[in-house]
């Protein structure tokens, strides 16, 4: 084993890249869950975003258009979930699972002609003197725009939930939909908006996977990233800042195990490949052992206005 083959500067840089998809998806799901809705369809929306983003980027030559299309497509898919759970009052767990299964089928259907193609990828953002800094420059300041966008989104989500009136109403809906309804807020519409937003975020995360991180389309390429994003929200106790910490932690595990595999570490490959999932379970265990806190009180409960 040759650990010196692992370059710490590149390691940090690639952790940021590999954390971005789950960070985006988890931030979206965070808002959805704070509104009191449990959408287990993140995986399906992510992979739909991945394939649509890839297809549009290949056809138009513009990765940015790909990202926009991915957000729109995943959002459209989440609309199905929204209508079912909010208007037809279906079971959220079952509907979310259905969304994932549908998304996986849809994506491999759309993606067939795009297998093995290379897509145009995002250029690295030139931050002038910052990017030229010796070590830190290559580590932190030579990424594409979406990495910085995801970081800005962490701050924006935090500020939105903590300081804005709309954020307060959203949280109220998630804590007690009956009270929010009694105060005259449109619970169903607020939740629908949150679901659509969550879909868009998951779509962006998926597109980042297929356009930047890999960058290629392969069937089932999200490989559980959507589920890890869901776990991340629990890990973060439903707070935006901690989602960032969690995402970078998971990104770190993923990149490190890939690097260890490449360096020929004396650990079974199966154990390394399974490590992101095992770590997710371990983290969930530690979090739950500490006891439940931070979960919105009305999470996953259907709302039906009786009058």
């Amino acid at each position, binding site marked *: 084993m040759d650990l010196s083959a692992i370059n710490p500067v590149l390691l940090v840089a690639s952790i940021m890249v590999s954390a971005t998809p789950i960070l985006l998806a988890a931030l979206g799901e965070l808002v959805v869950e704070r509104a009191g809705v449990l959408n287990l369809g993140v995986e399906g929306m992510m992979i739909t975003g991945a394939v649509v983003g890839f297809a549009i980027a290949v056809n138009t030559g513009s990765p940015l258009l790909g990202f926009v299309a991915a957000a729109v497509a995943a959002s459209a898919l989440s609309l199905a979930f929204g209508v079912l759970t909010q208007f037809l*009052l*279906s*079971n959220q767990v079952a509907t979310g699972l259905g969304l994932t*299964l549908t998304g996986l089928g849809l994506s491999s259907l759309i993606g*067939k002609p795009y297998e093995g193609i290379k897509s145009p990828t995002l250029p690295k953002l030139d931050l002038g003197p910052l990017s030229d800094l010796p070590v830190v420059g290559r580590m932190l300041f030579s990424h594409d725009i979406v990495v910085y966008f995801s970081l800005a989104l962490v701050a924006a989500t935090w500020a939105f939930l903590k300081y804005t009136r709309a954020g307060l109403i959203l949280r109220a809906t998630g804590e007690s939909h009956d009270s929010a309804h009694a105060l005259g807020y449109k619970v169903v519409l607020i939740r629908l908006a949150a679901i659509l937003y969550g879909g868009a975020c998951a779509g962006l995360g998926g597109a980042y996977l297929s356009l930047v991180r890999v960058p290629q389309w392969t069937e089932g390429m999200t490989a559980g990233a959507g589920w890890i994003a869901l776990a991340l929200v629990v890990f973060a106790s439903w707070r935006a800042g901690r989602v960032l910490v969690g995402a970078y932690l998971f990104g770190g595990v993923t990149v490190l195990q890939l690097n260890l595999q490449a360096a020929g570490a004396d650990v079974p490959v199966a154990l390394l490949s399974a490590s992101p*999932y095992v770590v997710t379970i371990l983290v*969930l265990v530690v979090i739950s052992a500490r006891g*439940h806190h931070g979960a919105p009180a009305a999470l996953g409960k259907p709302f039906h206005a009786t009058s």
Partner: protein
Amino acid sequence: MIRLEKRPQPSRLMSALTPVLAVVLTMVVGGMLFWALGANPFEAIRTLFWDPLFHPQFAAYSRPQLLVKAAPLILIAIGLSIGFRAGIWNIGAEGQYIMGAICGAAAGLAFYPSDSVLIFPLMILAGALGGWAWGMIPALLKTKLGTNEILVSLMLVYVAETILGSVATGLLRNPEGMGFPGSRNFKQWEAAHNAEIFAGTGTHWGVVAALIAVIFAYVLLSRHMLGYQVRLTGEAPRAARLAGVNPARMILFCLGLSGALAGMAGLFEVTGPAGQVTIDFGSGYGFTAIIVAFLGRLNPIGILLAGLLMALTYIGGELAQLMLGLPAAAIQLFQGMLLFFLLAMDVFTNFRIRLSQKAAA
């Protein structure tokens, strides 16, 4: 204005009717999808639902396949449905299915080339134990520490898949297989082969097990105290607790049972239709079984019918690939849509639709 009014009790008629409505709706929308893909929609639907059973040329081959495909789906779905009824969401049946197959196959292969009649029962037992153990992980974490069973059971699917990849190319690889991945072929080893019981019908031991599971679940849910407690836990958790139902034991029972059944399904698959432990013997039955469980209304008899229907779409899908050039993914999407429409139709079971004047408020 359309208004939903909650029924005092779910409508029994609607509960039976919704799956039929959902299937019809899926056929209509699916037909449009196939049309968009350039196939004749009527021909595509006929290929999916009719030809596997009645095509003059292919039906002889595909009819037995119906039971072969339905058996694992029903076996897994029965286990899942009992958990779902109690509000315990095991969605990692695919992982338990894989681990059951690995453990069962390993237990058998340890005695290769013995021809004792005890080999196959031993393998079934080991398969059930493997699935049970894999289901116990989320169950114990849930009962001891309150960890979310949905996420843990799902994460364990990915762990099981890496283990499968590792043993198929390592521990369980056929030593006489010239280095190809995959275990010994159970079809060539009489004592461990899950052979057809009646030639040409597709009835292997997994089909028998699935039928027993259906009867067992039916009796459990409608005639047994434990089944009553399962239903009570799902519908009124507080009342269940006050009535003396131990929630932790309920979780252990439901996850253990569904794990064991999924593990058995895996073993029957790997010793029968698949023949050997390979990286991709799974075919995603563990996930499709979730659709089967819901389509069957979490009711054993319903699941039996839903499993047969879903098996039909699998076989029809293969035919459609062959004859119409429809991509395999189209069928997956078709199955997902079915679940979606079913959940949407469910509103009629629990609610009455009332048309009312807007002013009346």
